[in-house]
């Protein structure tokens, strides 16, 4: 449809873009607000003062030690989010991030405890080990999907459980864990060598993990791959419509295998900052459920590297500041779980509602324009 007035068209286009951005922002903001309302209600019903609770969280989150902790936590969540998002971009639901990262970090911890090379070789070696293990474990699901048509959702859930068993098997003393452990009760690998320690930055608020730069690099590479490479184009095309991609010559099987492996490789890195910057060994203390948090972070961030950064920060902020709740005024820390859960559900619903609203607006606009045109044509006829 050609518009009679080019100037009017441009202003229309620019206005619509602004509206588009507004709509895109509306969903996450709406979700966070809605989740705040729901959690306030829950707090109030249970006889607690919601505003005071939020005040405790915000006060800690804006203090410098809280900020450093938030950034460190967000680093981990960001990597987890990217791992999940890479699969999501191709409509692959890699629920197996959990198992992939546990195996990846276990093997990295083992190699790190056995090998002692100069740092500039050692650290890349550990990163590659983790990525390789994570990628290979994810490939099992990829292969099953491509060659046997097994849904990756169910196979990765199974693989998660099997990964837990594999970790248990490998941690039997004498295998990956030293035969004689310093701590008899804890089953864990020997600590990684000194040369494996990743650099960190001392700030007023504590130690900021240097791995944050790796996380940023992952985000940049993610964005670059998606928008600037043939592979990324194919990936997005396949994610939009598999049949259309196939018709235009994309090898969907290879795409599934590659993206599953890449997703797993990124997943392998999730545990690395914890390993090389804080705990230095693999044991019971390793944080669980990072895979599922990664999925939530990716969903909240709409699978875009920038969006994931914001949602990782939000989730990390909630987690870190939530630890202060029991200390200041007897609020159960578990409210943070409720908040994260409601945010995830609200955000998907909000995206859908906003999408429908946008569609309706567009239809109305096109309808109005058509009506205006018809009216103009009728006027001309009357004038003639």
């Amino acid at each position: 449809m050609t518009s009679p007035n080019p100037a009017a068209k441009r202003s229309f286009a620019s206005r619509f873009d602004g509206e588009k951005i507004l709509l895109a922002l509306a969903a996450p903001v709406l979700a966070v607000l809605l989740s705040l309302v729901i959690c306030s209600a829950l707090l109030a019903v249970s006889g607690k003062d919601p505003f005071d609770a939020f005040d405790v969280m915000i006060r800690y989150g804006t203090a410098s030690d809280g900020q450093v902790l938030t950034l460190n936590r967000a680093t981990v969540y960001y990597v987890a989010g990217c791992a999940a998002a890479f699969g999501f971009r191709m409509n692959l639901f890699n629920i197996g991030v959990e198992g992939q990262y546990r195996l990846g970090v276990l093997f990295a911890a083992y190699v790190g405890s056995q090998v002692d090379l100069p740092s500039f070789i050692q650290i890349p070696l550990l990163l590659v080990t983790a990525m390789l293990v994570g990628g290979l474990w994810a490939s099992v699901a990829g292969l099953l999907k491509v060659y046997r048509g097994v849904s990756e959702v169910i196979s990765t859930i199974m693989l998660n459980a099997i990964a837990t068993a594999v970790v248990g098997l490998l941690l039997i003393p004498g295998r990956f864990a030293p035969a004689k452990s310093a701590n008899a009760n804890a089953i864990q690998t020997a600590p990684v060598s000194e040369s494996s320690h990743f650099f960190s930055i001392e700030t007023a608020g504590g130690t900021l993990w240097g791995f944050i730069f790796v996380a940023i690099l992952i985000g940049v590479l993610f964005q670059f791959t998606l928008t600037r490479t043939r592979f990324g184009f194919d990936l997005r095309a396949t994610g939009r419509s598999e049949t259309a991609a196939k018709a235009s010559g994309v090898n969907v099987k290879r795409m599934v295998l590659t993206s599953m492996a890449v997703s797993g490789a990124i997943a392998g890195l999730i545990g690395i900052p914890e390993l090389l910057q804080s705990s230095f060994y693999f044991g019971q203390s390793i944080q669980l459920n990072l895979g599922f948090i990664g999925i939530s972070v990716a969903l909240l961030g709409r699978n875009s590297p920038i969006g994931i950064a914001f949602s990782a920060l939000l989730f990390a902020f909630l987690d870190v500041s939530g630890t202060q709740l029991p200390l200041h005024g007897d609020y159960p820390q578990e409210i943070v779980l409720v908040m994260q859960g409601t945010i995830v559900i609200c955000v998907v619903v909000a995206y859908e509602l906003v999408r429908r609203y946008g569609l309706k607006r567009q239809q109305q606009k096109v309808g109005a324009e058509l009506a205006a045109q018809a009216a103009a044509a009728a006027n001309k006829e009357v004038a003639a």
Partner: protein
Amino acid sequence: MSTATTARPKTPGAPTKKSKITWPIVLLLIAGALVLVSAVGAATGNHGLTASGQINAALGAAVPIAMAGLGGLWSERAGVVNIGLEGMMVAGTFCGAWVGFLVNPWVGLLAGMAGGALGGLLHALVTVTFGVDHIVSGVGINLLIPGICAYVNRIYYRDYVANGAGANQSPPADSLPTITIPGLSDWLNDIEGHHWFLVSDVAGIVGGVVTDLSVVILIAAALIVASYFLLWRTVFGLRLRSCGENPTAAESLGVNVYKYKYFAVIASGAFAGLAGAYLSLVAAHFYKDGQTQGRGFIGLAAMIFGNWMPGGLAVGSGLFGFTDSLQLRDADNVHVLLLVIALAMGLLAMWHGYRRKYTTAVISLVVAGGLGLWYALTDSVERPLIVATPYVITLVVLALASQRLRPPKADGQIYRKGEGK
């Protein structure tokens, strides 16, 4: 469901056969498996696999998995994938234990179902009305419901410490009744003790079923049978399943697709809630954080294993329940199980050879040989391996049978009203 557990060694190979699995074949397989297990028991002197205690434990472990799987079945037959079963189960454990303590365990069971149904309602609202991706919604529910339960118990259990509550543990509820058939149970127990070939094994299995059987197990079995009749033998079931196969066609025939989907997903949540209530009222007498231990996912796997059919679901959950209970019992049992599976694979190899499917035969033979060697060279099986067995078996079955498994055609697809016009 005891038949489900004994049919176990044969099931992995069953779907590869061309012929349709009919009742006589199933019974024959069960009889064959029983003879095999008895023979191994007689040869090794280890009768643990058919001990009544083992069967009883397996049944108990199978119930929550079967109920979660039944929830998955209802929802997926109506075309909604329900990854959120785990979260709905948590709602069931929580509400079941809580109301079970406050009122009585019977009301607790109902409350557990109601709690799960609420989770189902949320899932239905998000997926059916708002048209959000089913897996996304499920993941959100798995995050939200355990969070709410952990939050609420942190606040309220504190007031019940005198009644035996802990920081993340509810006060204990009363027990539900169990059924033991007095004369029969002792008599069977006596026979089992003699270790006669085959007779004692049958006695052990039957004895496991008639001794200390929780009424909830009976209810669960009845629900599976009832679900079959409701879904496959009534107009209601036909309509519900049509929503999972082709909702557009169903709508054009006047079926209110939204209504059926809502009903199915809410029912799905109720079953998952019952699974949870079983855990907190029968398996234990209290609620604890993390009590479900991923059983919702296992239920889903059992359902897929069973090809989205109630009978298959029962077999699948029997399998999972059996291996689940093995880890709690004597480690020698598992070692003997290796020999059983090795022999079963050997027989399978011979069958395939007879049917001139030589590649499959050779593969089965190699697996049989490997397992046999494993049995001969080791004294026990490590615990983590036992835990992983059902998952590995499921993966293998999925890989072997994926072309034969058939999910509902519109399963997981987002449906919007008015597409049928």
